[in-house]
């Protein structure tokens, strides 16, 4: 893919989220984990937003989850999506608990092909030298739409 033509917003990692984006760069999903709560949270902070405790570590998660909800976007409010409507935005609830705002890919943008609670898995797209963006696709085979640009997350070694 010609990266210089990537026209959508590219995230800028902050000091607190760097390890998340480093994981994505390896096509792995790493999330902060609160030791006292024994639970993951998202988005990354240096403390747990549930207990306001600061005893945090980073752990790799499965990259699997289900669609908490979705919407089909019929209008582009940004030139990056001008050629791609309709497209699907979603909130995915990971098997480990946290919810992420994302896109669903490799699925028709049609209510007949989409449902809440459908199982999905992460795929990554390398959108710049630094950033690989996690999106999600149905786990069960579904009709493909257009060329497949992304590949599934691997489980290789994570960020140190």
């Amino acid at each position, binding site marked *: 893919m010609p990266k210089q033509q990537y026209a*959508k*917003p*590219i*995230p*800028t*990692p*902050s000091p607190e*989220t760097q390890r998340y984006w480093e994981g994505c760069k390896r096509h792995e999903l790493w999330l902060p984990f609160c030791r006292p709560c024994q639970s993951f949270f*998202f*988005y990354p902070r240096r403390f747990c937003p549930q207990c306001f405790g600061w005893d945090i570590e980073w752990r790799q998660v499965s990259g699997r989850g289900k669609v*908490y*909800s*979705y*919407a*089909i*976007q*019929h*209008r582009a*409010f*940004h030139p*990056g*999506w001008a050629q791609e409507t*309709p*497209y699907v*935005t*979603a*909130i995915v609830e990971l098997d480990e608990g946290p*919810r*992420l*705002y*994302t*896109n669903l890919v490799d699925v028709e943008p049609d*209510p007949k092909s989409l*449902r*809440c*609670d459908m199982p999905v898995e992460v795929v990554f797209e390398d*959108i710049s030298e630094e950033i690989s*963006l996690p*999106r999600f696709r149905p786990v069960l085979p579904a009709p493909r739409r257009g060329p497949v640009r992304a590949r599934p997350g691997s489980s290789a070694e994570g960020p140190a």
Partner: protein
Amino acid sequence: MPSNSISNDDRRRLSGKVAIVGADESDEIGIVPGKSSLQLHAEAARNALADAGIDMSDVDGLFTAGPGWSPSLQVAEYLGIQPRYTDSTSVGGSSFVIHVEHAAAAIQAGLINVALITHGQSGHSDRRRPGAGRPGLDPWFPAPQFESPYHVGGPPSVYAMACMRHMHQYGTTHEQLAEIAVATRKWAMLNPKAMMRDPLTIDDVLSSRWITYPFHLLDCCLVTDAGGAVVVTSARRANDCPKKPILVLGSGEATTHQTIASMPDLTTTPAGISGPLAFEMAGVRHKDIDVTEVYDSFTYTALVTLEALGFCKKGEGGAFVSGQRTAPGGDFPLNTNGGGLSYTHPGMYGIFLLIEAVRQLRGECGERQVPGAKLACVNGTGGTLSSTGTLILGVE
């Protein structure tokens, strides 16, 4: 550690101590390209103060949201006042409803006598003007990192996801959502100030184009230019004002999140918290309410708000609004000005809920007057179903 709970008795003591004594829009509402948003603030302020019979020189508290990095500084300077108390609480379109509770607190604490709450926004005309509207966010903030790479757009896309989950969990239908759009249009047809006054059918809503599935165009509010303002003072001082005082009998405020993925439960709203606070303070029950004004950014927003406030059970909003129950002549008068869906909606609509509730309780609403309205429930929703302010307003 001391308990952080506040007893109902403490809250009950706040009931009925302040009143809304003035309320009005800017001179023009709708599409007003020839005026800045600050001019809309100013016109609304002048009109609401005239309605209250109070001079600008008596205003000692200013409450506003919206323009620039310091809304109350910007508006105070523009109006030419130096208030001793300002509040720029800016949590979306609910802000102005929440300002009423904040103003009540300041008035009862003896810090101010007269609170002016203003709004002005050129949501329609600013779209054509470079540099207008919202400032950009810090790229290190959560939304630019974790939302914008996936979608850039306004509230429809995120409210649509909440609606989708509600449809999935409770079987809410497009037709039930359309009932609200149609009923609200019927109220707008009775309001000379409403922008959209042509008859509307369920089929019209269902055949309008998709904006963001599951929302059709006609599930979505307008985007207009408008200002609004209200004046709040103590119940004692309110008796000297020319119009019937509208007592603030109950109030509640709640916030649960900012970004939609952090919303604890997509199928409700913070009104599930602010509503009970307001009802308990007022000591009234749902069946006592004569008229209800809730933020209808989308048909769904109105539906889920009725559930969250407790007018029906969770998941039963679709059945509740069916059969044009919320239309003129129905047994649940809702959004009697025509709402954000058909009357006006510059972007942060909350102030107009207050203005309409005041007019209904004063009996000023002409053709759309709910006969004998004595108690109103107002609920503003802001952000991405992030914040709510609920008020119970009444007349003696």
